[in-house]
């Protein structure tokens, strides 16, 4: 008898013809660490919500879910609430109370424990998760990573036997995300906790999972140990969007159709490359074109900024030049002021010293109307801050209306942008009903309707799965062709390596190093892509998966021909 047993579960949302889940059979043993993955919209979130009675979505369900031999619906309320813990995506929305200690105690209060028990459990959790130093703080003051750790700790205080997590790291920066995953690993190893983790960023979780389950279109397509799944995936089509989320070593292994044992970690990947390939010098065909001088459209020189008069300086001599038709990525740790830098570049925040020029004209002298129409646009980190209306189409219309055009021109513009971003199927939907990636796309459409020549993006890939990232990448490419200058602030090393012309490292209030992307990443030792870390001992300047695959393919071809 398995710990969790899902039998023939089929589910469809009300008024939807297609079921979201088709005859799912899945059993999980006690103490297992199971990772569930798949492209967004494949039904993975819906599936895990069926394991937590309190938040099971409404709709037609057939089949059964057994918890420890009992039907989930027949568990007592108290056991259902305490023994199955559920951590959701947004760190912010899950926090209920104003104080950290109160948040930890919240679930225990609901279960009606007495003060002594709560005190002990809260203390235990604070110790285990390292919360002691911020135990008495307000929950508002915490960073995103701390918030998510708090959510996890608050659930662990109820001593669950099964922990379900629905994309818990998608809103976190890479460092906080890997800390979070490490904590999960520790819970599993040290307490024998059963964990079911839904995740699309697999780089770190894949090697530590006991079992990987892959879903596609509402059904389970692979289920087994990471190695077994890696093998099973060999039969999956090369262009399946799911593959983009796999760890780098596995992607390279897969793309080369290698029949050897699949490497899961960077270490194994290095070993595997050494065993199968030789070092070689190589020049990428795609090289940043410096041949003709591009016009500088936005330049910041020595900008200083602080939020309060007596506060600390967030920017200390920040300088950057942005050229027409290029994509620049600004990378750097969390809370170092990257978003502030973007604010200063966009004129939303005013630097107290330094020069900001747009097309050679000082920013101060440009009126807001001039600046934000057909000149500069910002895509905020949270696309929801842009949505005003009830449907995507009226969202687009409301933006066009601000430009004083005739009806025909307005319609033409909307049609163009809809076609460009493939929004046809979304037009009638409510912006809030869309997935994170789709919301980002609609927000981008809104911003692009203002016809900017300079586009500033704040964390454009946050919460996106590999497939949505590809769409965004294509779009950036198009805009670049049209001569739009794009600056993005991002944590996504992989994305910036594949899709930007220049990368800049932001640290301590200014840009400390800035270079053409390939030089930038092949020069860094830690702050670089997984593909580079895996292959740099053989191919010194390969930075993306595609680079490594291309080089390996060349070698294989040469071997066949000779």
């Amino acid at each position, binding site marked *: 008898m398995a710990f969790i047993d899902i039998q023939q579960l089929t589910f469809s949302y009300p008024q939807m013809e297609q079921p979201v889940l088709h005859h799912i059979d899945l059993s999980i043993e006690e103490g297992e660490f199971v990772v569930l993955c798949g492209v967004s919209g494949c039904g993975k979130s819906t599936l895990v919500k069926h394991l937590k009675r*309190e938040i099971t979505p409404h709709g037609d369900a057939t089949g059964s879910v057994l918890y420890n031999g009992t039907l989930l619906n027949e568990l007592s309320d108290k056991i259902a609430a305490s023994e199955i813990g559920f951590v959701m995506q*947004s760190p912010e929305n899950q926090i*209920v109370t104003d*104080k950290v200690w109160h948040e930890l105690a919240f679930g225990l*209060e609901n279960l009606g424990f007495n*003060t002594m028990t709560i005190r002990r459990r809260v203390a235990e959790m604070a110790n285990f998760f390292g919360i002691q130093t911020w135990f008495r703080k307000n929950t508002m003051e915490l960073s995103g990573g701390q918030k998510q750790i708090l959510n996890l700790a608050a659930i662990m205080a109820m001593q669950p036997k099964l922990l379900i997590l629905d994309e818990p790291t998608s809103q976190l920066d890479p460092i906080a995300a890997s800390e979070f995953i490490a904590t999960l690993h520790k819970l599993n190893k040290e307490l024998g906790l059963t964990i079911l983790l839904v995740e699309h960023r697999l780089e770190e979780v894949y090697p530590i999972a006991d079992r990987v389950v892959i879903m596609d279109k509402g059904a389970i397509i692979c289920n087994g140990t990471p190695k077994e799944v890696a093998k099973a995936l060999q039969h999956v089509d090369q262009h399946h969007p799911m593959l983009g989320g796999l760890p780098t070593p596995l992607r390279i292994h897969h793309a080369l159709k290698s029949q050897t044992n699949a490497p899961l970690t960077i270490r194994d990947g290095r070993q595997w490359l050494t065993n199968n390939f030789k070092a070689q010098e190589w020049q990428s065909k795609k090289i940043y074109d410096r041949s003709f001088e591009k016009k500088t459209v936005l330049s910041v020189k020595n900008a200083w900024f602080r939020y309060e008069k007596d506060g600390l300086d967030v920017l200390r001599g920040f300088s950057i030049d942005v050229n027409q038709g290029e994509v620049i990525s600004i990378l750097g740790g969390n809370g170092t002021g990257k978003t502030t830098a973007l604010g200063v570049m966009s004129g939303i925040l005013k630097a107290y010293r330094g020069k900001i020029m747009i097309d050679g004209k000082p920013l101060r002298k440009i009126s807001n109307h001039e600046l934000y129409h057909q000149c500069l646009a910002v895509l905020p980190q*949270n696309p929801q*801050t842009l949505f005003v209306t009830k449907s995507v189409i009226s969202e687009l219309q409301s933006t066009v209306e601000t430009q004083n055009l005739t009806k025909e021109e307005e319609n033409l513009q909307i049609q163009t942008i809809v076609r460009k971003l493939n929004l046809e199927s979304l037009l009638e939907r409510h912006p809030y009903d869309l997935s994170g990636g789709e919301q980002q796309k609609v927000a981008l459409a809104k911003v692009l309707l203002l016809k900017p020549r300079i586009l500033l993006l704040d964390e454009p890939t946050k919460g996106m799965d590999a497939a949505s990232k590809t769409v965004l990448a294509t779009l950036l490419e198009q805009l670049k062709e049209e001569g739009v200058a794009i600056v993005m602030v991002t944590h996504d090393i992989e994305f910036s390596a594949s899709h930007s012309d220049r990368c800049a490292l932001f640290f301590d209030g200014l840009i400390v190093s800035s270079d053409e992307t390939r030089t930038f990443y092949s020069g860094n030792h830690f702050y670089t892509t997984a593909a580079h870390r895996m292959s740099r001992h053989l191919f010194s300047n390969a930075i993306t998966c595609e680079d490594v695959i291309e080089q390996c393919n060349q070698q294989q071809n040469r071997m066949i021909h000779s």
Partner: protein
Amino acid sequence: MKAFANYHPIVIFLYFVFVIGLTMFYMHPIYLIISLAMSILLSLQINQKSFLHSLKWMVPLFVIAALINPLISHDGEKIILYIDDNPITIEAIVYGFAMSVMICTVIFWFGCYNKLMTSDKFLYLFGKISPAFALIISLTLRLVPRFQQQIGAITQAQRAVGMDVTSGNLLHRIKCGIHILSILITWALENAIETADSMKARGYGLPKRSTFSLFSFEKRDALTLTIMFILMTINVIGSFLGYTDYYFYPTFSELVLQPISLLLYTTYTLLLALPIIIELWEAFKWRSLISNN
């Protein structure tokens, strides 16, 4: 300045109820002076800066309050002059000063109350009476700063798409303001669903909810409470027996120093000085701890 603040909220709260209650009740000059002196001492001890700052407007207030009484009250026997046939009496002047002292003292005590009885302590005490109310307050305290932050983010995002509240004509500004508000409301409602899910998932709504707090009632709290009650009872009994009565009209009643009134003054002083004594005692213990090492 931390010693008394670390006591259980109920001790702090009752202390202020007693002290402020008695201060407002007694018009006896000696009691007034004791209370004024103690309130000033405690203020200097726990919030010196804002206390000294507040003197700027407290002194004028004191003088004005004192001067108003003789102008409107003409009772009393010792007349010093007539203004428009209205007698100004010494009794009225002194009574005015006494009232003024009392008002200022109460204000000083409330200053100390604010410093020692922080909002979380107050909420904890009243949460005991209604747990549901306490939870609502806690949720609200979380939401208000969240909304403020979100309004900031929305305003910036909207400014960058040409909907700037800070520029343009009035109509445009109103339109932008409404936009921002409408975005905020949609955002709040949408995100509240997830918060509600998170509450449900953690068993909110199960019967027999308990409340937890970080405050614990210790032996020293019980001891302090007992002392407070004894001192309070002595004073209340004293008042019932008429030892604390004092009359300004028709003329001043006599100040008699009996053993029993001396006892009352001492107990009153002790009650009011409790935080100061605790503070000094802790400071003394602390120093002796360090010097022993």
